[in-house]
């Protein structure tokens, strides 16, 4: 089937009808979910010569997937030639803005010249529907079998060992030595199989996003872009997501822009609804002009696991591994918002480990342990560990970070640049006083600098 797929250049949808022959143990591994982590695992295993079945519940890969907007490609580039990949724009600018609810904006913009050169710091905006379908096609061309419109409803066990999956197809039980759980943030199968616990509410964020259509020239003009260059704008402060812990974002695609917010479900549950928060963000004077006159083309929402390293479940079990969002591999350090790179990295290491284990005819936990070990030694777990302190610290200091600081900055800069007949000295003193007051004096500022020192260490 995979050979046909390669020839026609189209994704085949092999059927698993009740009359189909017995597929039990026809495959070396079954991958649950054709997102970035699952496809990376399937691709890696197919390259290692394994027979891989990649199951996707949507009508095509990507149809159920939502993300903020940047695909990080260092590992994907190792796996496939991304020259023909359906990228939107490369990130040429990162911009960090603090917004007050009064309409103030204080921004830092970063536009290194080097980002214009290949490989563009391995950062691209993509639309997941297009990218994921393309990426899954690479796995199919490598020999994996993709079956869509098939929902995995549980795992099959023999004693403690996982020996396959149960699907919603007629006679839909499928057996294979290894199951890769790449089912995303809503990991119903892993949770039901006791492979992980349901994450705590305070460790999960809700994100809502809209894609707006604009013509290419308008996007280039509004965001000061040329050619395939793109922008990633991140927003913090009360003007972005109100009293909640989180932020807003705007990403440029070729002919659309993605606009959204992400913040803790805990805050939504306490009365700050996603829709109202999105409305307020889109109405902010710093954001509204970017989307003026644009047409809404899609509204989407998803949860994001933000528990960090401490919330990571066990990654290997007898006959199964957990990868990507299902394993909670998302980094939010305030300025680093990553997940796509970690998903691909985990799928890659899992695929390698499975191939090595099956080489010895084994699929028990101890035979698969190379996966967590390699992931541990990679940037994925190292970065998650490094920023494990972050979520709790910002939640504790939210009043200062999201409300007092943006307002103090806006007041201080207004003071510093004030045009009147008072001397610059006096304005400078007043601006400094305003900042110090917000930080709690020299002592308070020093204390906060110490608390957040790990941002730079």
């Amino acid at each position: 089937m995979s050979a046909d797929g390669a020839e026609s250049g189209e994704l085949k949808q092999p059927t698993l009808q009740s009359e189909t022959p017995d597929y039990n143990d026809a495959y070396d591994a079954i991958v649950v979910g054709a997102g970035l982590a699952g496809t990376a695992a399937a691709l890696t295993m197919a390259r290692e010569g394994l027979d891989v079945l990649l199951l996707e519940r949507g009508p095509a890969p990507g149809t159920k997937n939502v993300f903020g907007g940047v695909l990080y490609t260092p590992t994907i580039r190792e796996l496939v030639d991304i020259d023909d990949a359906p990228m939107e724009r490369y990130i040429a600018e990162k911009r960090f803005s603090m917004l007050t609810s009064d309409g103030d904006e204080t921004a830092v913009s970063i536009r290194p010249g080097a980002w214009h050169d290949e490989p563009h710091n391995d950062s691209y905006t993509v639309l997941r529907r297009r990218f994921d379908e393309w990426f899954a096609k690479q796995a199919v061309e490598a020999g994996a079998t993709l079956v869509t419109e098939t929902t995995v409803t549980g795992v099959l066990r023999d004693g403690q060992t996982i020996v396959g999956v149960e699907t919603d197809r007629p006679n839909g039980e499928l057996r294979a030595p290894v199951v890769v759980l790449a089912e995303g943030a809503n990991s119903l199968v892993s949770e039901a199989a006791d492979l992980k616990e349901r994450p705590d509410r305070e460790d999960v964020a809700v994100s809502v996003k809209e894609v707006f259509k604009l013509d290419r020239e308008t996007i280039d003009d509004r965001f000061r872009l040329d050619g395939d260059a793109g922008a990633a704008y991140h927003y913090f402060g009360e003007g972005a997501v109100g009293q909640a812990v989180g932020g807003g974002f705007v990403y440029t695609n070729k002919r659309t822009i993605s606009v959204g917010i992400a913040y803790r479900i805990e805050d939504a549950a306490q009365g700050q609804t996603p829709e109202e928060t999105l409305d307020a963000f889109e109405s902010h004077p710093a954001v509204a002009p970017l989307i003026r006159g644009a047409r809404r083309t899609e509204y989407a929402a998803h949860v994001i696991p933000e528990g960090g390293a401490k919330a990571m479940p066990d990654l290997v079990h007898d006959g199964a591994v957990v990868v990507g969002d299902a394993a909670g591999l998302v980094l939010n350090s305030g300025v680093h918002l990553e997940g796509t790179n970690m998903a691909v990295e985990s799928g890659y290491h899992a695929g390698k480990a499975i191939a090595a284990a099956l080489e010895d005819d084994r699929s028990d936990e101890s035979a698969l342990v190379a996966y967590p070990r390699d992931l541990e030694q990679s940037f994925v777990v190292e970065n998650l560990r490094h920023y494990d302190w972050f979520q709790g610290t910002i939640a504790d200091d939210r009043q200062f970070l999201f409300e007092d600081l943006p307002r103090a900055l806006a007041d201080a800069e207004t003071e510093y640049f004030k045009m009147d007949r008072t001397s610059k000295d006096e304005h400078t003193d007043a601006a400094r006083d305003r900042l110090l007051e917000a930080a709690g004096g020299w002592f308070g500022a020093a204390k906060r600098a110490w608390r957040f020192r790990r941002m730079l260490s």
Partner: protein
Amino acid sequence: MSTVQPHVPDVSIEDRLYTVKYRDAGESHLGIKNADVCTDCTTNECEQVCPAAVWTVEEGSNGVPSIAYENCLECGTCRFGCPSDNVEWTYPKTGGGVVFKQG
């Protein structure tokens, strides 16, 4: 301080949901585990957190929300949002449910 008047976008949740493509699976993939828990609930957090107006606690419903499953974006927020873990959440059957065009 500024005098900027906040401009609220002229868009309703219906307008937003209208942009989303669905394949109706014909039956709800969402449910309630125990209606008594909803009757005792005073916070209606499912309604608060849902970005797609799936959960609505109507007057006289004894606190049990109605479920507009065909609006569901499959984001999963309600699963985590309900403090009593009373949301029954499954994936829609055989490719049903939301079909994102862009994602």
